[in-house]
């Protein structure tokens, strides 16, 4: 009996090690397959660039080269009045606007969601308006903003903020509704002040949902910002895209787009990790 137990334990350790290596192999396999799929996409791009004229598509290598060459300075950008900068310079404008808009909109949305959770009547009145808003009117109002306010940066920030606020409100609202009311009641009976209640119960309870909403909003916000810049802005990748399209620099166009995509991916990854860190407290 004793001997059996000992061999059981020994087997356990060996099995665990074997199991771990098997798991690592599994992850490696999945990663390899993913790389294969992505590689296939690049190969397809390469192939298409050979059958399509260079005014339509250039191979990935040329795009990378373009990015390297003009990251810090692109003559076309200077010609069109943006000063001595390249892709990076324009990108920073875009990033600044999106981050600003998302932070402001996210905060407003968070508190609005909490507010609406407590004021069901107001919420029921306003919600249909918010829902039918959607993204179509935001698009439609963009050119109007240019007519009204001219070529300024705050209209784009406003757009991103409004959109983010609408989305995050919905998610924060859902998070607040799903919070078991007993937590808050307990805190209130313990004599906790409103601020403490907010900090210890509402925040960690609603934050995960709100951050999920922020992630979704952010993904679309990059597009909103870029497109808004396209219509008229004092800077930004969107303006870069317009310039490059005007001079038919397809490699520049593709470079700008990929750059934005990469930034969006990075921002998403950061947000996901940040969310995980934050929610680990709760």
């Amino acid at each position, binding site marked *: 009996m004793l001997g059996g137990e000992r061999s059981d334990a020994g087997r356990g350790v060996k099995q665990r090690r074997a199991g771990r290596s098997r798991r690592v192999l599994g992850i490696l*396999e999945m990663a390899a397959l993913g790389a294969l799929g*992505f590689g296939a996409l690049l190969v397809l791009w390469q192939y298409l660039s050979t059958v399509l004229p260079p005014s339509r598509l250039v191979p990935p290598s040329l795009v990378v080269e373009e990015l390297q060459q003009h990251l810090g300075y692109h003559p076309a950008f200077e010609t069109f009045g943006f000063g001595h900068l390249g892709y990076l310079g324009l990108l920073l404008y875009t990033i600044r606007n999106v981050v600003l808009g998302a932070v402001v909109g996210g905060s407003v949305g968070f508190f609005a969601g909490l507010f609406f959770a407590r004021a069901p009547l107001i919420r029921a009145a306003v919600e249909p308006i918010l829902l039918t808003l*959607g993204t*179509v009117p935001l698009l439609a109002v963009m050119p109007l903003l240019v007519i009204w306010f001219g070529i300024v940066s705050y209209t784009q920030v406003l757009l991103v903020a409004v959109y983010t606020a609408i989305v995050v409100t919905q998610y924060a609202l859902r998070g607040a509704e799903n919070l078991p009311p007993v937590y808050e009641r307990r805190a209130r009976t313990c004599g906790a002040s409103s601020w403490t209640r907010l900090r210890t119960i509402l925040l960690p309870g609603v934050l995960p949902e709100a951050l999920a909403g922020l992630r*979704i909003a952010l993904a*679309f916000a990059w597009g909103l910002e870029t497109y808004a810049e396209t219509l008229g802005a004092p800077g930004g990748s969107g303006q870069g895209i*317009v310039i490059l399209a005007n001079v038919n620099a397809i490699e520049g166009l593709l470079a700008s787009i990929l750059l934005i*995509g990469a930034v969006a*991916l990075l921002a998403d990854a950061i947000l996901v990790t940040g969310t995980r860190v934050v929610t680990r407290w709760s």
Partner: protein
Amino acid sequence: MSGRPASPRRRAPLFLRLGVIAIVVAAWELAAHVFTHIGTSGDPTVPSIEFLGTNSIRRLADFWNGGLGAPSPSAGGKETYWGAVLAVGQASAASLERVFVGVTIGLLLGIVVGVLTSTSRRLRAIMAPSMHFLRMVPFLALAPLFEVWFGKTDLGAISFIAYGVSVVTFTGTIGAVSVLPRVFIERAATNGASRWATYRHVILPGIVPAMRATVLTALGLAWTLDVAAEILGTQRGLGVMMDYSLRFSYTGRVIVVALIFLFYAAVTYYLVQYLTAVMIRWQPRHEVEVSQLTAIGGAAPPPTA
């Protein structure tokens, strides 16, 4: 799930909802009377409702080339309301047709590729990073690219819409298949069903409720992408009116066309929501409410891990 049962959706009394709309309209009118600046085009910067209803709408008749009882302003005829209606109708048909075709192609592509990919863990692993990357490249940022590729043609707009819709639908389909209880697929197998029979009898019908949210999201996105394309300028459709009005800063007309877009987007959305309700009448009684969050987001809901 949640700690308490979902609170019943309280419909605000009608007068309250109308009241909110009235407040918004009143605020607009106030702004129109406060900001009375007239732009270079002759249109006020903030046109009043009266201006929108008279001047702006009537001027849209400019796009009517005569016939069906309305004169052609470009040929010297009068601008009439009827002419405006006809012009808008003709343009709307083109825009609606574009959206319809783009959505259909996008949905088919997304669902077919999504269902086929779902069947194999390896296939999903292959497609995952590429699709994630495509998803993260913002659709709206691609609008100028599609314009360079296709010019301001219908094909360009349709491709643009189809692309966005298919990416979103693909993600939604993967998600929908992953939440389909495995027991259904196992049951089909233990009845000797082939792969195609399983798709036809189990997977496709089974994912309809989950797909409904995706379809509505895709529809919202399709209109967004269409408006984006039309603002940049198209050969046919409401975008012609929009582009022209923007070029000359006819604020009133820009607003009217924008409202028309909004109207169509809302109507088609509710229409699809209503029509697909039939397809899910078999759904068990828990929350059947379609998440409209995703419709607002214009992006697909994050696929279930």
